[in-house]
């Protein structure tokens, strides 16, 4: 085995197989595990995927939502054990790989059109 194959096989042990196909522009709901004292619960976080980065076990997505008038962006390592689930709620129609222009938009212009040719 060469170096790349060894590293990939190490990563494969930790990768999740049940993740949906996520595209930029999709609206997703991410279940994040939170520890409170010694109790563990799952907190949902919902928003638009505005960027995807890296591949393999290090793959992460940036999810943006506007909460009480303030834009919030969180980056999730989607193969992390702290992420319980990722669910695609809506497919968005976009023409860019990074939707950073949404940061400058508010209200109606910050919406994305839905596309129906990709199954959820």
């Amino acid at each position, binding site marked *: 085995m060469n170096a790349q194959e*060894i590293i990939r096989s190490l990563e494969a042990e930790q990768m999740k197989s049940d993740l949906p196909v996520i595209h930029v522009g999709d609206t997703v709901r991410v279940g994040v595990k939170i520890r409170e004292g010694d109790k563990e619960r799952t907190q949902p976080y919902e928003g638009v995927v505005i960027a995807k980065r890296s591949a393999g076990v*290090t793959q992460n997505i940036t999810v943006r939502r506007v909460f009480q008038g303030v834009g919030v962006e969180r980056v999730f390592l989607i193969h992390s054990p702290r992420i319980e689930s990722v669910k695609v709620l809506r497919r968005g129609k976009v023409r860019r790989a990074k939707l950073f222009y949404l940061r400058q938009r508010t209200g109606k212009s910050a919406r994305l059109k839905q596309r129906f040719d990709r199954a959820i």
Partner: protein
Amino acid sequence: MAVGILGTKLGMTQVFDEAGRAIPVTVIQAGPCPITQVKTKETDGYVALQFAYGDVKEKNLSKAEMGHLKKSESAPLRHLTECRLKDVSGYELGQALTVEQFESGQLVDVIGTSIGRGFAGYQKRHNFKRGPMAHGSKNHRLPGSTGAGTTPGRVFPGKRMAGQYGNEQVTVKKLTVVRVDSDRNLLLVKGAIPGKPGGLVKIVPAKLVGGK
């Protein structure tokens, strides 16, 4: 008690610990390294273990090197190195040092050769500031003043100047061993180590201040 080992840097990735934290790790393929010479106080004046690593064709080694390796009945190997120890009893010629001597959580020092950048200028080698690129300036990547004038009349030793950068031995101290995979001779070490993937590295137990 860990002695040390030679290995090849394979590259970096990340692993998740029990708490779900992502830990950046460097994957090193190390050993098995046969012991080629046991040095003792009586014969050599100091106590150390010499071991070898890196498969090579027999024709690429000199007769002297092959003769030395023959004493321990090891295969043709390219690199020889040694580690000084307090006591070498229990180690014998030809015995293989593997990654099993390390355990996860242990602190190690990693010695390697940094990426060579050739003859590098002031900005890359010493992080000097650049001059203005426009407005008629002709000072783009120059060093500025190198010292005073007639007194002292010379440039002081140690003045930072352009020159060879990288391709030198670098030791990164106190890295944590995250995982030991003895089936595939792999060591996962937290953090970055010198050199590019494919480079030769030496892993030794951490040398701590105070000799602990």
